[in-house]
């Protein structure tokens, strides 16, 4: 019961704290324009880094933007970490393994959830009962095995690189080592607990137990679940919560090139920002 509640609370806190972080960033004052080109929403110009300002009297012409282009670029960043791939390939292999592994782990968790609900509905998840249970059965195995392997290998290699590379080592704080060690602890304890049964039937049963708030756990499982709960609560409080930050740094800073033209939404934001703006410093103004 307690473990089940703890996991529920941890996941809830993960969502609430991530949301709060996003809320805090969203509530910050309107900042000055800081776009950097290429800006993907620039229709027809994005490929070479152009903007609407290439047009004479651009403010008289309708803005040509493409949400699809922005979405594609966003997906390239989210799914493939494009910038790291382009600019630091050696680190990308490790980082990508780790991040792809996380996506697999998320998929595995969702499949466990679907399997647990299927079980609770009285349909046993097995290889051959039906297409649905067969899919759940095999996909859970695939995502779980691949997820655990590449996430753990990625996290371990990221840690190793940080220790072995003199430049990274110089800039890494104890907290940043802690972040990787915490993830590794969760992953390794998970491997210890779940690896004896690679069909993940026990994991599915546990998920069903969590849903019913009825979890029985041995010492190893208890340690794993406690670490998992700590990780869920800690991630949004640390820089590992960069899934929030990255949205703002790309969409609200680097790719935000909305001009302040009469009648626009930006104009009303500027208007309200200027009326509430607190001036910074100003000692230099008259010196």
């Amino acid at each position: 019961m307690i473990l089940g509640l703890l996991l529920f609370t941890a996941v809830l806190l993960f969502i609430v704290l991530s949301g709060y972080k996003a809320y805090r960033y969203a509530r910050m004052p309107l900042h000055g324009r800081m776009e950097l080109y290429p800006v993907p929403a620039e229709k027809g110009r994005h490929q070479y880094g152009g903007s609407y300002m290439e047009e004479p009297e651009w403010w008289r012409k309708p803005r040509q933007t493409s949400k699809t282009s922005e979405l594609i670029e966003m997906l390239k960043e989210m799914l493939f970490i494009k910038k790291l791939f382009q600019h630091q390939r050696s680190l990308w292999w490790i980082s990508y393994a780790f991040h792809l592994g996380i996506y697999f782990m998320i998929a595995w968790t969702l499949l466990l959830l679907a399997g647990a609900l299927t079980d609770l509905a009285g349909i046993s998840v097995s290889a051959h009962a039906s297409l649905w249970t067969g899919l759940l059965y095999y996909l859970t195995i695939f995502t779980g095995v691949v997820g655990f392997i590449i996430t753990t290998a990625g996290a371990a290699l990221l840690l190793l690189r940080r220790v072995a590379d003199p430049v990274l080592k110089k800039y890494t704080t104890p907290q940043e080592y802690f972040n990787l060690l915490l993830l590794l602890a969760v992953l390794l304890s998970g491997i210890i607990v779940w690896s004896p049964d690679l069909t993940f039937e026990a994991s599915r049963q546990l998920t069903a137990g969590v849903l019913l708030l009825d979890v029985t756990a041995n010492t190893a499982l208890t340690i794993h679940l406690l670490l998992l709960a700590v990780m869920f609560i800690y991630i949004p409080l640390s820089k590992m919560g960069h899934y929030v930050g990255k949205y703002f740094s790309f969409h609200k800073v680097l790719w935000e090139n909305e001009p302040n033209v009469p009648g626009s939404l930006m104009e009303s934001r500027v208007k309200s920002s200027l009326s509430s703006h607190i001036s910074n410093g100003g000692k230099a103004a008259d010196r």
Partner: protein
Amino acid sequence: MMQGKDLRPRDLGRPDEQLIQLDHIMPLHSPYDQPGMEPDLQSVKPEWREKYCMSLDGCAAIDTFPRPANEQEEKEWIEKFLKGLEKAVSESNGGVLQPLQLSMEYCAKCNTCSDACHIYKASGDNELYRPIFRSDVFRKIYNKYFHRGSKLYQKFTGADIDVNWETIARLGELSYRCNLCRRCAQTCPLGLDNSLFAKEIRKIFSQEMGIAPTALHEKGTMLQLKTGSSTGIGKAAFLDMVEFLEEDIEDRIGRSVKIPIDKEGADILLIHNAGEFVAWPENPAAFAILLDEAGVDWTLSSEVMGYDSVNYGIWYDDTQAKRIAQQQMDAARKLGVKRIVIGECGHAHKAAGITADRYSWGDDKIPVESFIPIMWDLVRSKRLQFDPQKNNFPVTLHDPCNMVRQMGIVQPQREILKVIAPQFREMTPHGTDNYCCGGGSGFAIINGPNFAQFRNKVSARMKFDQILNAFSDTITESLVPKYVCAPCSNCKGTIRGILEHYQATERFNVQYGGLVELMVNALTSIDKPYLEFLNE
């Protein structure tokens, strides 16, 4: 003195006479790969050490920060700095808070940004210039003084730095070892921006401590607010210069061109970097020739703050930036023009077109645009006729960061060059990936006791190497003129400096200038070459 590779952010306050030595700078390509092709670094004079903070790398950009006479003074400087730091990361710094906070919080220290930085690479990968070095010092100081928690927690978060006068003075200097070109931000997998830290340190120094390089503040912003121009040109002198330009145009091309001044209700108010009138009058003259020939309805303004587009405030002080931008806008409004067009000045493009875009709204605002799309419009509509054979020599294009990476004006200037310059070739890399000239964010005009040396040998080194590569097919053929087209005053000033420093004009006939001069040189309506080096 430390070996660059051993240097750590927490060492910034060490009592060494000088933290690092610039002794392994990046080698240049042929023909500058031979010994004796460039002057050596000059040693630091003892009197400079008394007067300036030379203890970072033996160069000084800030010439107004006195060494404290006693402990009390040192304490006061530290307090002012910390107060400014606290403000920088607060709501009162709303214009930058969100991007700054993101960069404070989420840097993964993956070090992807280092290879993007021309200063770091040109220094021979010296640790001091690594983009995250400066940011990490900033973060450590902030975490140490403004994050609640025990000493153990501070150690956990890496807040392991001691703050003394040396730390602050060196950090101030270090903020002037970044051109604010934002090339590093373009490569960051998390979309973060190390240049923000450099800019914020400069702001703390100016806005809280009253310290800024003389060239930027006293002889820049203050002079501009007082006389109308950072060159010190007042209204009367400006009008004389315009008269001189008209005579000069007649001498050069045998045609009388009337330069419109203070024409109320004109379509275009053209604002130049006033430095052009002093250093490169052929540039505003070329604008006048082109606009006159195309029959454009335009004017210059003689109103104080209406004839100099510069705004140094965007490099070091938001308060000053806003004052200047608003007064420039006022001057345009008085004239009742329909739009403001910025001439060949990159930072003025950004200041008026981007930074000031959110300074005002409604009727207070007159639309601002770059001269480049207008020129391309005149070319493609054939309102100007060219004979490209007049420019039949190698031409390469420098992309000013402010216009290109930070405004997305990439293609029109290339389209113009394709029409007027048959031997046009790109630099590598170019467009939004191009390297800064090395003079960005004030470097072009800061000289300090020996800052020109840092500019020529380090910050502009990558640009010089790019120029050598772009002309590698003819670089040793001194009879072939080679033209670096740099449509920005600061970039032009920097390129002038490196061509002199490396004697590249004298030895290899590498010339430089703007875009409009090259356009005028190719006009079919003009018989004589407009570019002076073609007459020599």
